[in-house]
């Protein structure tokens, strides 16, 4: 995590778990680093956006940037110019939580100048249980369209295969195999395996990618 480049862009299929990953990643990172900003660039979703967790994240020292229209009540596709500050500040660790699919990745085009080799990482979140990314072709299609729209190359894959509370180790491993196929085909490494906290202890130790335990922060306990 500390070896990742300063600017981390989280992209992927709609509903793949980008926001939950981005928030958990930011919280982990905040344990090691001081200056962290998380920018919510989601112009696709009206619910379950990282801006809803602004208070929680700021308590942990993470600056949250989203729309200039505050709160959860807006579905305007607007992003504040404040995103540029942390992108330009070489001391700042930036996480860009991007909306789903190529449609969501469109916001990235505006920041192309900052996506220089060695300066940024772009991680693609994959849930092998989401229709659309259940097979290799689906994953390759999403990666190709997102890269074309964002005008940036993906530098790492994240296996985030789950079925919420119904997730089993087998689901994770099924997703790992799928992610592995994409990794070999594209020559992009698997950087992370994000897994529900309760399952981490039972995972095999030899998986490619760092394991990130996921606490379901976006999901209320009653869901």
């Amino acid at each position, binding site marked *: 995590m500390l070896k990742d480049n300063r600017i981390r862009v989280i992209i992927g299929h*709609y*509903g793949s778990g980008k926001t939950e990953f981005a928030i958990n990643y930011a919280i982990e990172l905040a344990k090691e680093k001081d200056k962290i900003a998380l920018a919510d660039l989601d112009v696709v*979703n*009206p*619910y*379950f956006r990282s801006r809803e967790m602004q208070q929680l994240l700021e308590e942990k020292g993470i600056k949250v940037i989203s729309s200039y229209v505050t709160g*959860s*009540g*807006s*579905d305007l596709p607007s992003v504040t110019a404040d995103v540029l500050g942390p992108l330009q500040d070489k001391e700042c660790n930036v996480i860009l939580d991007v909306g789903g699919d190529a449609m969501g990745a469109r916001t990235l085009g505006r920041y192309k100048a900052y996506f220089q080799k060695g300066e940024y990482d772009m991680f693609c979140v994959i*849930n092998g*249980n*989401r*229709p659309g990314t*259940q097979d290799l072709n689906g994953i390759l299609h999403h990666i190709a369209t997102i890269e074309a729209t964002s005008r940036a190359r993906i530098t790492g894959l994240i296996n985030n295969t*789950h*079925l*919420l509370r*119904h997730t089993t180790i087998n689901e994770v491993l099924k997703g790992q195999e799928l992610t592995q196929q994409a990794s070999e085909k594209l020559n992009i490494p698997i950087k992370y395996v994000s897994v529900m906290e309760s399952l981490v202890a039972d995972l095999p130790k030899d998986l490619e990618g760092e394991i990130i335990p996921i606490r379901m922060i976006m999901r*209320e*306990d*009653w*869901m």
Partner: protein
Amino acid sequence: MAKVLMKGNEAIGAAAIKAGCKFFFGYPITPQNELPEFMSRELPKIDGVFVQAESEVAAINMIYGAAGAGARTMTSSSSPGMALKQEGISYIAGAELPCVIVNISRGGPGLGGIQPSQADYFQSTRGGGNGDYRHLVYAPSTLQEAVDLTIEAFDIADYYRNPVIVLGDGMIGQMMEPVEFNEPKKRDLPAKDWATTGTEDKRRPNIINSLALDPAELEKHNIKLDNKYKAMEENEVRYEMYKTEGAELIFVAYGTTARIVKNAVDALEAEGIKAGLIRPITLWPFPNKAFNEIPTAKALVSVEMSMGQMIDDVKIANNGKLPVHFYGRTGGMIPTPEAIVEKAKEILGGGK
């Protein structure tokens, strides 16, 4: 079939296609946009038709046309958009056409807001259109239930030749859950010999219409419709009883709110307080009979994401037997299990 992880709006769309829906007409509005988006992507793959209409009024009248031609057809919208569709729904009920209409409801009145709400209970169960008409209203509380009920809604619509509403609040549309698509159990459905499919000079033309020039004929038509509605009340009521046995306090809640109330019921149980839940799955017909199955209850409390609408039906079903309380959040705010637990203690500790 293996479970997949879907968003509510997508899952409802996929369920409709599974049920044989090939024609979708709609107009965008948050928080249901993923549903028409899904249909626009998926229907062309199965030789179906997706039309983004110029308005909700246009969309519901396209439904009238497609349903009149005997097709399985669906539209979806959210609260203010549903308000616009009401005229068409009345016409569809009057002309006895089957269709499925999905409302992923949001805060109101007026344009309101995009967060979840259950303030369309009156609109859904009383109908915003004119005349003596009724339609089934399904209120799923999980995405699997949304899938199963949507599939079934098409059969029910065909069986009764009547529109069926699937009402989910914004949370049901937006949340993600694992779902699977099972083969629905087959119903014996009447042939659509009333549909306007072309006479080929072999029969007299079928006419789809809701206008009657003779009041005696119109009265007869209304009595016929009413008999249909009575059959729905007799045969289609659905509800779930959750931990109601021996319960002193009975919550009544549907949709997302019912999930939250179940958590409150469990929390109360852990403290030794006996509470249960009546969860209407059909809002119309309302499960009146469920209220005869709670002999130990001392009080009822309707929990809603509104200022109190279903509580009217709770009072009718209760028929004056028990005190009826209310707890609600509105405008897009979601009740917490903790607040519901507090309300329960307040009621049981005295009060009214």
